[in-house]
């Protein structure tokens, strides 16, 4: 049995179902992200795990023990809140020591553990400061230290990085992962930032409308989205519509693509002959060539400079497509340029039939 088992968790508020039948098995030491737009039920899930809301149905089993009915103070989970929720009247050390004090640890042991934890988050020099004297990133690290010092079986993070500026957020992502790896704490993080979820998680749970849409490792989630929602929410996507014919997909304009699934094996047998097939084609998998060289003639409609990339919007027989090209020093294509689109045979991924909305 998995370390943390969530089974059929459902949360209803009156006639509104905020969370429907959420089931997830988490292994010890895993870093899981709950990803989705606001109102998708990810925060409700976290609140139910923390014990702040009592689920309408379902079970939460932690290490073989059913904790569904336990109040938050009996669960012993570490929680990092979006607002950090530090105690403003206590120093950094006082904040971190609070949980240990509640456990009745003797002062000497408490101080030792607080000092070690502050060292881990690089805050030793600021132990005597009050929260209002700290920067956002420092508060964030106090919140993490406070949650981890009690050595919780599970760490819950509620949008932990959303209040930080972009640069700091990136640093803290790696910091968070470093601390989590070092301590091996099983972690669930709620986020609406797909880049954050992809970069630091072992697995990502994509949610929408109170339901799980897909649970997968970050790269699989990206390469093989299970539904149109996941494909659109995670990364940029070109959607192609075609018809299955003889183990291949026939696109508009007579272009044919072989049907493959995510491990590259032929998948033609799965799609019924003549059925409509949706394909995901990521912008960075497309290449722009001089006219006449690629698979499909196209024209650059607009281009955007993103620093590491150029993003082109091109018009072709397949409709408007987005193409991302690395900013590798070659001269970019100007707007209105006639070009040709090219891609490797196996880069277009078919959505599962049930995902075709």
């Amino acid at each position, binding site marked *: 049995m998995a370390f943390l088992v969530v089974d059929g968790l459902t949360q209803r508020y009156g006639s509104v179902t905020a969370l429907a039948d959420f089931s997830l098995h988490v292994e010890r030491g895993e870093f899981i992200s709950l990803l989705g737009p606001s109102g998708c039920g990810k925060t409700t899930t976290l609140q139910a795990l923390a014990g702040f809301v009592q689920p309408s149905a379902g079970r939460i089993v932690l290490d073989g023990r059913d904790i569904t009915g336990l109040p*938050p103070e009996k669960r012993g989970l570490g929680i990092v809140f979006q607002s950090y929720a530090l*105690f403003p*009247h206590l120093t950094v050390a006082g904040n971190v020591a609070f*949980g240990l004090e509640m456990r009745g640890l003797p002062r000497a042991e408490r101080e030792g553990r607080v000092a070690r934890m502050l060292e881990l988050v690089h805050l030793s020099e600021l132990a005597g400061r009050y929260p*209002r004297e700290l920067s956002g990133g420092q508060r964030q690290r106090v919140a993490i230290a406070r949650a981890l010092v*009690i050595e919780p079986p599970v760490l819950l993070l509620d949008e932990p990085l959303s209040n930080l500026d972009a640069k700091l957020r990136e640093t803290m992502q790696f910091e968070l992962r470093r601390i989590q790896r070092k301590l091996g704490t099983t972690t669930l993080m709620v986020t609406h930032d797909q880049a954050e979820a992809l970069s630091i998680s072992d697995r990502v749970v994509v949610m929408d409308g109170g339901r799980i849409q897909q649970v997968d490792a970050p790269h699989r989630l990206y390469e093989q989205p299970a539904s149109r929602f996941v494909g659109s929410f995670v990364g940029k996507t070109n959607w192609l519509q075609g018809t299955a014919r003889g183990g291949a997909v026939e696109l508009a304009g007579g272009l044919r693509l072989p049907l493959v699934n995510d491990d590259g094996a032929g998948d033609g047998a799965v799609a019924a002959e003549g059925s409509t097939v949706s394909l995901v084609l990521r912008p960075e998998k497309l290449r722009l060539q001089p006219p006449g060289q690629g698979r499909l003639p196209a024209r650059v409609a607009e281009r955007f400079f993103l620093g590491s990339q150029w993003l082109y919007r091109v018009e072709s027989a397949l409709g408007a497509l987005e193409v991302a090209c690395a900013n590798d020093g070659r001269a970019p294509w100007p707007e209105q340029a006639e070009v040709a689109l090219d891609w490797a045979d196996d880069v277009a991924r078919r959505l599962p039939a049930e995902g075709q909305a």
Partner: protein
Amino acid sequence: MNRSRAAPYALSAPALLLFALMVLLPLALTALLSFQQFSYESGVQGGFTLAAYAAVLGDGFYWEVFGRTGWVALLATLICIAIGTPEAYILSRMRPPWRSAFLLVILAPLLVSVVVRAFGWSLVLGPAGFVNQFFEAIGIGRVRMLYTPIAVVVALVHVMLPFMVIPVWTSLQKLDPMVENAALSLGASRFTVLRRVVLPQVLPGLLSGALIVFALSASALAIPGLLGGRRLKMVATLIYDEYLHELNWPLGAAIALALLAVNLAVMLGTQALIEGHYRKRLGA
């Protein structure tokens, strides 16, 4: 440059003028009055004497009245803290339609004339009043409450409660509700959360509420006058008597200034002692 520096003074001039006219001037006149001579034959005379102050400090009667006023105000303040703080906490947890309804209930005493309110309490606490009927019914027997400090404290608490609830409520609203959840998640019981997390954060509000309640209670006139009766003197009623019955204005002025001094000392002392400590921590 010059203009922009003068602007703040110009803008605050009306308020300063009003303050000087309405507070400082009467206060200065009272202070002057307290040093003037008085005799029952000829009334208030000019000149300079410390006779009024000597009378206040030298007579045990005045000490007794000041002492009584002090403990009545202190008791009213403590009861207001005990009732008002939980009340503010509950109020802050209420949902919108109920919250405004109950806020109105708390503010209601301020909407009723002090005379009406005092006579209302004398009906409730009087010998044949509602409370005594209840006491007799459960076998305690009749208790004398009207014209005792009990009635004064009860009525003071009733009217002072809003001054306690509002500042505490205001500081409660500045709290991040997640902070309580954070404490719970760290293993604190509900009671520990209140004691260790909520209370320290509302302490500045609680303190300002307590100071307001104490100052207003110590200088209350109508409630001790109407519910304390003729014989149970408090400082404000004493001042009233000196001015209007004895016509000994210098003595009345001296007592008034002594009350002001005591009130100021209590306020500044408490503020310096505790609030400075928390101000530093909370930066509020």
